[in-house]
């Protein structure tokens, strides 16, 4: 988080017909940082992600990649820069095995023929470095659990060695243990120096792994929060727009009182 951001968006706007889905959106992602993007339904999270991923290019604004302005007009452009996106529906091929899915569209070849040995070797290395536990890399993805499928989808996004990974609701459909697996994996992405944009509805998950939290409300930024200096309540108020509510005022007053009396804030 010391150096310049890998990816930064400034003044990004997107309009769909009569709806201004995103206006003047700002976001910065550094290497080795997990930025959570939160907001209510229709707040513009998906629009923002699609702008970064090249699915729906923005109407206005600047996207900078390592300090250099770039235009991302197609998903391919984003991938070439080093932005990988894991969508909510994963898009894995159930009939192919784990290796087949990891390398789908990017198969390693040897004399023009699929190099299964090297792909299997690299799959195992990749899964090992991420401490992903999959029974076997040669079983069809259909036989994996929801959490394992999610980890395979995330691992697949890493094959192209991206700098930024966008995770769209990675824990939405998962149970407790599987969510824990995926959150562990998000932390490992950070350890490997990747910038991660995490979109989630689940405040517990967000508070567990995010370094910074960007709140979107009605297509606009509604505050950036540092995880260490904020509370779930504060973020929820920013999401709902109730920033100035009875709850926040009471909290602010209590905090002032505690600080005044010299107590340590928990």
């Amino acid at each position, binding site marked *: 988080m010391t150096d310049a951001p890998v990816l930064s968006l400034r003044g990004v706007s997107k309009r769909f017909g009569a709806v201004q889905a995103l206006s003047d959106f700002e976001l910065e992602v550094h290497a080795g940082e997990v930025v959570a993007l939160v907001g209510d339904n229709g707040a513009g999270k998906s629009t923002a992600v699609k702008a970064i991923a090249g699915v729906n290019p923005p109407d206005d604004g600047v996207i900078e990649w390592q300090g250099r302005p770039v235009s991302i007009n197609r998903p391919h452009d984003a991938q070439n820069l080093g932005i990988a996106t894991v*969508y909510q529906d994963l898009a894995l*091929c159930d009939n192919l095995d784990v290796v087949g899915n990891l390398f*789908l569209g*990017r198969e390693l070849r040897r004399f023009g023929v699929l190099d299964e040995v090297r792909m299997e070797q690299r799959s195992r290395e990749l899964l*090992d470095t991420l401490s992903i536990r999959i*029974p076997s890399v040669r079983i069809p993805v259909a036989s994996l659990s929801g959490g394992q499928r999610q980890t395979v989808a995330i691992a697949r996004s890493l094959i192209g060695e991206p700098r930024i990974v966008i995770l769209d609701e990675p824990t939405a459909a998962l149970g407790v243990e599987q969510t824990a697996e995926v959150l562990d994996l998000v932390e490992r992405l950070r350890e490997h120096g990747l910038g991660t944009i995490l979109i989630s509805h689940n405040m517990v998950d967000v508070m567990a792994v995010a370094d910074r939290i960007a709140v979107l409300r009605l297509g606009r930024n509604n505050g950036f929060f540092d995880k260490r200096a904020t509370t779930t309540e504060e973020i929820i108020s920013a999401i709902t727009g109730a920033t100035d509510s009875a709850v926040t005022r009471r909290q602010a007053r209590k905090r002032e009182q505690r600080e005044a009396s010299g107590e340590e804030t928990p």
Partner: protein
Amino acid sequence: MRGARDRDDRPGGPGTGDAAAQEPAPESVPAVDSRLIVREEGFRGYAGEFRRKLRSGELGSLPVVIAVVVIWTVFGSLDSAFLSAQNLSDLSQQIVGTGMIAVGIVFVLLLGEIDLSVGSVSGLCAAIFAVLNVINGMNEWLALLVALAGGAAVGLLHGFFFAKVGVPAFVVTLAGNLAWNGLMLQVLGTSGTVNIPGDSIVSELYSTVFESPVAAYAAAAVGVGLFLLASLLDARRRRAARVPYRPIAEIVLRTVVLAAIAFAAAVVLNRYQGLPLALLIFLLVLVVLDFVLRRTGYGRRIFAVGGNIEGARRAGISVAFVRMSVFTISGTMAAVGGLFLAGQIQSASQTSGGGNLLMNVIAAAVIGGTSLFGGRGTVWSALLGALVIGSIQSGMNIMGVSNAVQFMITGAVLLAAVVVDSLSRRSQKAAGRA
């Protein structure tokens, strides 16, 4: 033959220690989950693996192999002429036409689609060849190429309407079934039937037999030898790369089974006339296309589109290209099959490609074990399925069963194959393998 896809990882395989050595991980992470059911070593392990696969519905080629054995036993016991070297040799030639068309159907089924036009297309291409070569006197090789190109063009047209315009493949090819049959009648003109001389290339491709016994044995030996060599090289490379590899005992066992089948076939063929050229071509086509499907990026893309269209698209695969190319393959293989069928009866007539040919080729592909639901299958199912269909027809012909009964029985066999496919898919889902 289809082993490479269902290879199992072994516990604590050679890959496990490697990762731990390279990276001083805080905790040692086993590469293999302890909950994974792994195969035990040795033959007891094979038996256990086999039972587990049966229960979870991974039947593979097993039902069709059983079907062949049952059919041959029944017909063989009813009439000894069925299992004679002559009848089995004839059978090996007769299945080629149907089998070739069924190979194209396998490709289409892998996408989860269907091609209902292959019967008409095969008839059309036979008619094109016959009219160009016999009536217009065109060079026979050129006429052959034009006929094949015609099949490819027809397939590409179907693929275009399906992939680019978005018409369901079932409707496009149903329309094609009628339209190409009409075009065939147009091409044949008033005469209706064009006889193809016995020394024509198409007739010779079908009827040539390598009479020297060496040919059949050599073909069997080369096939088995290449299989063994490829298996050993693959195992060595996997071992060097420290990924799970197939133990030598298993390779030997597989090779022995393959050798037994290949040399038994060679002995039977040599007891009659020898190795038919048509069968050799069919086997070569199967080997090449099996390689394309399982070992090339293109084949992987076909399976991906058959498994999850959206997933394939996100991975950067051009779904439209895969679809159009697969229908082109289907049309081309229909042309190849149609030419072999024309060579068999030495004529192209108004009934070419009609009758129950379409049903037979789809039945062959499905009976052989290729799923109607897309994403699962192998080109070898065309051989096995064509063998089942061909055996039933041949056996009933020997016993003088009428066409009426033959149709009913073939229909029942097709239904049985689809039922097996649906049931195995259901139990695969329950066992988390589909």
